[in-house]
């Protein structure tokens, strides 16, 4: 059963289907908001707002992917939140190359780390990213959107979406490398 079919069941009144929709996307949305706001209470409120909106406007969703619809609402909520906080960062299409694309985290090093440690490493690196980079990484790697879906959510061309993801990934890996180096130095000391 696809997420869209589950959603239609939920709209017909099935509480079970509504719970399935939450289990499919609730955790992703919460983590998406949590990594972008770093405030659990606010992430909860915003996740709840997303689900309330899709229920209020349940008749508006006819075609397309449910995941795209959900994360478009989430992205708009996040931008609204940024505006409230006076977020002034400009999202440009062409970002300058700030990271050497050939420098990357050694896979062998990552292999030695446990999965939860990789998660912590990603967490720490995400905190150092800019908001726009976090938004892109959150949509693609936390939200699970493909590049075309991310482009649709961000309302940008596909090529621009790929460029943004690549730039954000390079910066993320740079921060991960710094984290790894700092951890190695700490372990050595």
């Amino acid at each position, binding site marked *: 059963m696809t997420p869209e079919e589950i959603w239609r069941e939920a709209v017909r*009144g099935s509480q079970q289907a509504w719970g399935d929709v939450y289990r499919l996307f609730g955790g992703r949305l919460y983590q998406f908001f949590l990594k972008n706001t770093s405030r659990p209470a606010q992430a*909860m409120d915003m996740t709840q707002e997303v689900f309330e909106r899709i229920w209020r406007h349940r008749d508006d969703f006819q075609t397309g992917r449910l995941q795209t619809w959900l994360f478009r609402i989430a992205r708009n909520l996040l931008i609204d939140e940024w505006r409230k906080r006076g977020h002034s960062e400009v999202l440009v299409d062409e970002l300058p190359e700030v990271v050497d694309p050939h420098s990357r985290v050694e896979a062998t090093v990552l292999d030695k780390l446990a*999965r939860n440690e990789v*998660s912590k490493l990603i*967490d720490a690196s995400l905190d150092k990213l800019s908001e726009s980079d976090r938004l892109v990484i959150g949509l*693609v*790697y936390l939200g699970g959107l493909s590049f075309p879906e991310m482009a649709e959510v961000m309302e940008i061309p596909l090529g621009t979406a790929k460029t943004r993801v*690549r730039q954000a990934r390079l910066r993320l890996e740079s921060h991960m490398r710094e984290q790894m180096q700092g951890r190695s130095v700490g372990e050595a000391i």
Partner: protein
Amino acid sequence: MNCNEFIERILDHVLLEQTAADSEAAVHLEECPACRERLEFERSLAAGFSAIVSADPPAELTSRILTIPERLNAADQPVVIAEQPAVLEKPQPTPADLPAAQPGRSKPETPSREPLWWQSFWFKAGLSFVTAGFLLAVGVTQVMTTESGVTEKRAELARTAPATEMVAKPELPAGGPAVSAPLVEPSGMMMAAAPVAPSAPGEQKAQVELPAAPPPPPPAFRADSMESMSGKSITKSGPEDVMPVVRNLETKIETAGEMPAQHDDSRMQKKDRREQEKDVPMIVGEPLIGAKGRKEQKLASVKPAPVRASAPVPVPTKSLPLTVRTAEPAGNAYAKAEPIQEVGEILLLKTPDGQKRLADELTPESEAGFAPPPPAKTAAAISRTAFVEESGTAVSPRKQARIEEIMSAHPSGIKAGTLDIDQWVLSGWITVKERIDIAPPHGMKWIALKRGTSWKAELRSAR
């Protein structure tokens, strides 16, 4: 597949395993150890992100979200009053299923979200309709009452006023103020405004005893309304004297159907006025009237002649008294014609042959002299009146008036071609720059037409 293509594809984690399983990518992976390392790194990264996402959200969030349909449906559901029939209850299948499927999640509805019965839409709508209907009924009743009251008063006064008039006439004193007042045919409005005759005996008796007091001073105005006539006649006569005559007069009216002719002073006045008008020599006020061919000559002789006004002489005319000033020629070359008579603003001349004719008696071949001749269609005249909107749609009256105003103010600046109206609008209601084309479109031509007292330009086919 090269390294760039491979890395670009595995960056999309949705396609990560799919890309790794691709045969073309597998061939490249066997040849490229760097891409193999990159693939492993992406797998580790995807696992790390997956671990983040798979973390359970707070239980509080779960409970809040799972009750969203129930809460929102309850908020949208209209309130059902216990006493009302069940027909008003809107069926909501969703909340009916929700508590059964997930027991324990049902959140009690907050009372503040429930609209009370006097806050419901139907109650407000019904109250509004009732109020509007009541106000409408009150208004209609008022109008009908007023109309019926006026009609009754008119009917009552129509019965009493003529009789009062006839009775009052011989009773008036010689120097009374209303003797010189002409009797006017009672109209509806006048009768409605006239005071109702007192019916109480006490009031009439008190008014009869008034002659001991000094007589009232004569009014300074010309009393021509039934108000003064009826009031004074009843005061001088009395109900005992009036009523038999009223009955007699009513009988006469019923039999004859109208008032006798000898009592209709207003008709007599009209007749006398007509006879007087016949006796007064009629001044022919159409100096420019004549047969075709003599028009230009009259215009040349009359138009530039300066006149010197003398003492005004009242002259009766058909309906209104006019003031005629006899003007003498000033002695120039243009004023060698006969003395000019001027009436008001209209320049009058006696016709050379002495024949006096009214404008209504003109023969069809005659032309009205007051109307200016149509403008000669020179290039300048055409350019003054020629205009069209760039879009080709009809010109609105406001815009046409403004264009004519502009053209009359700047006759020399108009040329064929495109013209911006906004150039000349320093202050006015035109705020947008409008562009008009002075030259007529291809296959069209401008013609001047007189509409009423003004000239309008219209596009017509050149054929």
